[in-house]
């Protein structure tokens, strides 16, 4: 490849965006190489996490056939935490195995599967290839440098993740702003499948997803998460990076995650499990208004590199947006294969098809979400207020008296402030 022969496309990064792109390109007969800095696909990748499958049916149906999903999510909870108490809203829905709504995944296995599928279509997926620089010629990107060696291509697809050094190098992102990122930390806890099914009340191959809000993040914007895998549990926290800046205490992430695991409503779920891995990853959470330009001629950004993540509080989506963007980039390149896919028109084609797709439409629809979710009252004020109100309703004191609903609600209204609460609720309804 270093003998000057030009590829059609070089994809940087073997994550779900890059591999979906490579698969689509190779399936259509284009010559594609995927440069991955880890020794194999997935080696550097981390998810919470779950993949929403419905949006990918048309775009990636063939690629995802037989994918190693962990469990189909049939039980969803949002949990408000306050001290040793919590209250939750839970939805149990019987999504069939044949039509999963979303599935939990582990990236080492999942990305390797995608890489194998791309390989079957004759994309070259190469590990230990760190791309250090872009090659630019005649006002466009003409390839990349890997360990000083040129890899030339008509188009470079930057699927190099949340930090995207290529987006920065190309001037598409001036600097990485803390307010546009969440820091995610996750532990993987091995646990027998039968225990998982018993504790979460799910059938084999079915699983649960839980989101926690409140003092799990010490009242900082963000939350805790728990996903069941086949024979393990993914548990962790995500905290908005700029909120960490505003905070003075000496708590570390390990303190947060350790306290989360010790909660009386969490500890029994993971009891007897063994932590086998500890990871951290950034989540681009800036939303629509933080999106960079999606490329320069000859360079297309996809997935996390393009900031394509949607966090609405109840939904956290990244991988489906990543895979969709990878496929759409590939299709634009395929559209221009007879001419020059490095031309500005091809990039415009990609921008337009992404803008017309659910990826950008959903992000635009929820463009206010990052701002709304950075309101610390959501994490500091409401979870304690709701938990305390409910607790008072279920308590009988020594005088033999309970608290009437009316009084409990009145007390809660005093704590949260009626007008402030109304304002916040109005905002949250815009999510």
């Amino acid at each position: 490849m270093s003998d000057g022969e030009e590829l059609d496309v070089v994809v940087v990064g073997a994550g779900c965006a890059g591999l979906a792109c490579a698969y689509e390109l190779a399936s259509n007969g284009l010559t594609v190489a995927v440069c991955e800095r880890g020794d194999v696909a997935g080696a550097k990748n981390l998810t919470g996490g779950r993949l929403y499958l419905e949006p990918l049916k048309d775009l990636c149906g063939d690629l995802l056939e037989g994918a190693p999903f962990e469990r189909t999510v049939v039980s969803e909870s949002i949990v408000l935490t306050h001290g040793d108490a919590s209250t939750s809203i839970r939805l149990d829905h019987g999504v069939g195995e044949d039509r999963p709504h979303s599935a939990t995944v582990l990236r080492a296995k999942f990305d390797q599967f995608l890489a194998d599928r791309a390989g079957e279509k004759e994309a070259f997926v190469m590990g230990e290839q760190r791309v250090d620089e872009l090659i630019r010629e005649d006002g466009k990107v003409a390839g990349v440098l890997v360990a000083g060696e040129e890899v030339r291509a008509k188009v470079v697809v930057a699927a190099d993740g949340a930090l995207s050094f290529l987006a920065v190098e190309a001037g598409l992102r001036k600097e990485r702003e803390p307010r546009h990122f969440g820091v995610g930390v996750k532990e993987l806890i091995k646990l027998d499948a039968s225990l998982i099914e018993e504790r979460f009340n799910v059938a084999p191959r079915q699983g649960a997803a839980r989101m926690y809000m409140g003092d799990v993040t010490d009242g900082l914007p963000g939350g805790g998460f728990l996903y069941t895998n086949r024979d393990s549990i993914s548990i962790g926290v995500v905290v908005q990076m700029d909120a960490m800046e505003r905070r003075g205490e000496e708590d570390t992430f390990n303190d947060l995650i350790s306290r989360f695991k010790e909660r009386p409503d969490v500890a029994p779920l993971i009891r007897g499990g063994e932590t086998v891995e500890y990871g951290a990853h950034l989540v681009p959470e800036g939303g629509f208004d933080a999106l960079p330009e999606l490329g320069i001629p000859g360079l297309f950004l996809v997935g996390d590199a393009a900031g394509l993540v949607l966090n609405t509080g109840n939904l956290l989506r990244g991988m489906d947006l990543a895979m969709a963007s990878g496929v759409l980039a590939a299709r634009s390149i395929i559209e221009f294969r007879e001419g020059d896919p490095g031309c500005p028109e091809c990039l415009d084609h990609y921008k337009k098809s992404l803008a017309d797709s659910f990826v950008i439409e959903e992000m635009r629809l929820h463009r206010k979400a990052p701002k709304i979710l950075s309101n610390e009252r959501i994490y500091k004020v409401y979870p304690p207020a709701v938990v305390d109100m409910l607790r008072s309703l279920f308590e009988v004191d020594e005088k033999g008296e309970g608290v009437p609903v009316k009084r409990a609600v009145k007390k809660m209204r005093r704590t949260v402030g009626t007008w402030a609460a109304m304002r916040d609720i109005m905002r949250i309804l815009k999510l």
Partner: protein
Amino acid sequence: MKVEEKLALNAIKNHDESHIVLDEEACARCETRICIRACPAGLYSVEPATNKVIVDHSGCLECGTCMVICPLDAVTWRYPDPGYGIRYRHG
């Protein structure tokens, strides 16, 4: 469980040379030293004898938090050389 114990569970091959380099001058005038509590791996600390912020790159999870959060742009951070660094077995 201490963070060191958790890091010890990971598959990782540490390079002799650090992929994280600090601008000592900038660090010396830094008031927040936010890297110390922001790093999920707890790799940043203050050297008691000198009161300098130091970083031990072994165990780095390669998230990039330190580079992004540093208010003084004092963290020069690159991906470890191929063949080195974290290798997520589960992810």
